[in-house]
């Protein structure tokens, strides 16, 4: 019976059948890629740099399934290989993948993995569209970092959204110090403004309605004034604050419920939660 001669052989043979995950770090940030060497997944025309089975001693060569391009990574660097959906398809361990020739099992594993990749892609697109909603000047590099931290399970979706919207760097979380507090406040004001406009628009639409009498319309106008006043007060209070959690507490009560990416339903703010998780992550 065939014996696996080396680890590289195992990886190459398994990747020639399945999509696997590669996790490595770039500047201490975990990066997750989905890769394969399976020609039927790579497709025609993309295999011009055909590295299949052509393993050299210095690099692992794989096809990145998401970015649709070849990717290489030095063997000497620390890398984790992730094998998905094994037990769900009655494969008991990673070594078994080397010996499996049953295409239906391989197809099922790949089908499940592609579904997972699609879910991840959808989640990143959704994250981006929500970030843009509140901050068009978001930092692309930070967005990539937080989306990777979300995919690796280090941060939740809401924590990644918060961190991307507020452009908080990893170093700021690690030192628990926001460098540009006025900018943080400006972004927070943008978030408040978004919900203020939404509330005012809803009330103004009601005012246009023919079903209300003049007194009721006056009352609604009064509510708009109260909203505007409350928002102005929040802006004013924020001016003198420096701690992110203090600033976030100034979300106008009249606009409650507070967006979940700012503070969860139990009252914990996303800055503190993200900070703790990132500090724990870098303690490892």
């Amino acid at each position: 019976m065939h014996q696996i001669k080396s680890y590289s052989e195992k990886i190459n043979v398994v990747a020639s059948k399945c999509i696997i995950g590669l996790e490595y770090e770039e500047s201490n940030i975990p990066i997750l890629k989905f890769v394969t060497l399976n020609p039927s997944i790579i497709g025609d025309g993309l295999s011009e740099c055909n590295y299949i089975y052509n393993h050299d001693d210095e690099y692992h060569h794989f096809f990145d399934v998401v970015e649709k391009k070849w990717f290489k990574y030095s063997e000497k660097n620390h890398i984790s290989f992730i094998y998905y959906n094994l037990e769900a398809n009655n494969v008991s361990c990673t070594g078994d993948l080397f010996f499996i020739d049953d295409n239906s099992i391989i197809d099922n594993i790949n089908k499940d993995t592609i579904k997972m990749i699609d879910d991840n892609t959808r989640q990143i697109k959704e994250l981006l569209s929500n970030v843009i909603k509140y901050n068009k000047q978001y930092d692309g590099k930070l967005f990539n970092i937080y989306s990777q931290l979300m995919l690796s399970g280090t941060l939740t979706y809401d924590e990644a959204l918060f961190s991307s919207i507020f452009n908080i760097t990893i170093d700021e979380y690690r030192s628990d110090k926001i460098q540009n507090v006025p900018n943080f406040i400006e972004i927070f004001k943008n978030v408040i403004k978004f919900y203020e406009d939404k509330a005012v628009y809803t009330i103004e639409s009601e005012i246009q309605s023919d079903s209300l009498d003049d007194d009721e319309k006056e009352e609604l106008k009064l509510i708009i004034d109260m909203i505007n006043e409350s928002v102005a007060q929040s802006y004013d209070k924020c001016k003198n604050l420096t701690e992110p959690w203090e600033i976030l507490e100034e979300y106008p009560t009249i606009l409650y419920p507070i967006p979940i990416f700012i503070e969860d339903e139990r009252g914990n703010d996303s800055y503190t939660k993200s900070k703790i998780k990132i500090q724990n992550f870098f303690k490892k």
Partner: protein
Amino acid sequence: MSNGYVNVSGEIKSSCISCVRGTNYGQTCKTTSTMSVNDSKNFYTTKASMPNKPSGSETSLTDFYCSSVTTAYIKTISETWSTYCNNNDGSICASFVCDSIVTKNGVKVYNFNLNGSTWVEKVENTSVPNAACRTLLRTGLNSGTYTVQLQDGLTSSNPQRPRASLDRICKTVTVGYNDNTRVYVAQRDQLGLL
């Protein structure tokens, strides 16, 4: 020997033999300190699968050169207490004892699985030792119990061995809420063989 694994370098010495003999193979037959040499020979012949030997062939003590018993530590760190809620910030850190994993072609291979069917495999090139390769950290966890499975890369790549669950370490650990940090020692009850 005091660390619970057979040294990975050097010949097996007589002082190691009792440890090897006392190893539980997880089978119906167990070695005991009173077993005769012949009984031991029969035991290893029928129960020990050597990567490069047909099943049932005789096994000599020198075959146990570089053998080891996979050993790991699993640390669980509790979720932080807060006034209002849980923070989902518990973590589990599983670390292999480096010397308990045998080296093949210059690499040690470590497999990790936490509560699911996704396996993470890390490879340590022994010419570039890197402790991070032996460790898997999972953060952002709720309090509760988790099943951690650990396996070296050699037994999993040997077609002559059955893919039985006893090839691996399987440990249930607890992430508490506002609790103490817990450390579990986990050891496989079989030898890993080069």
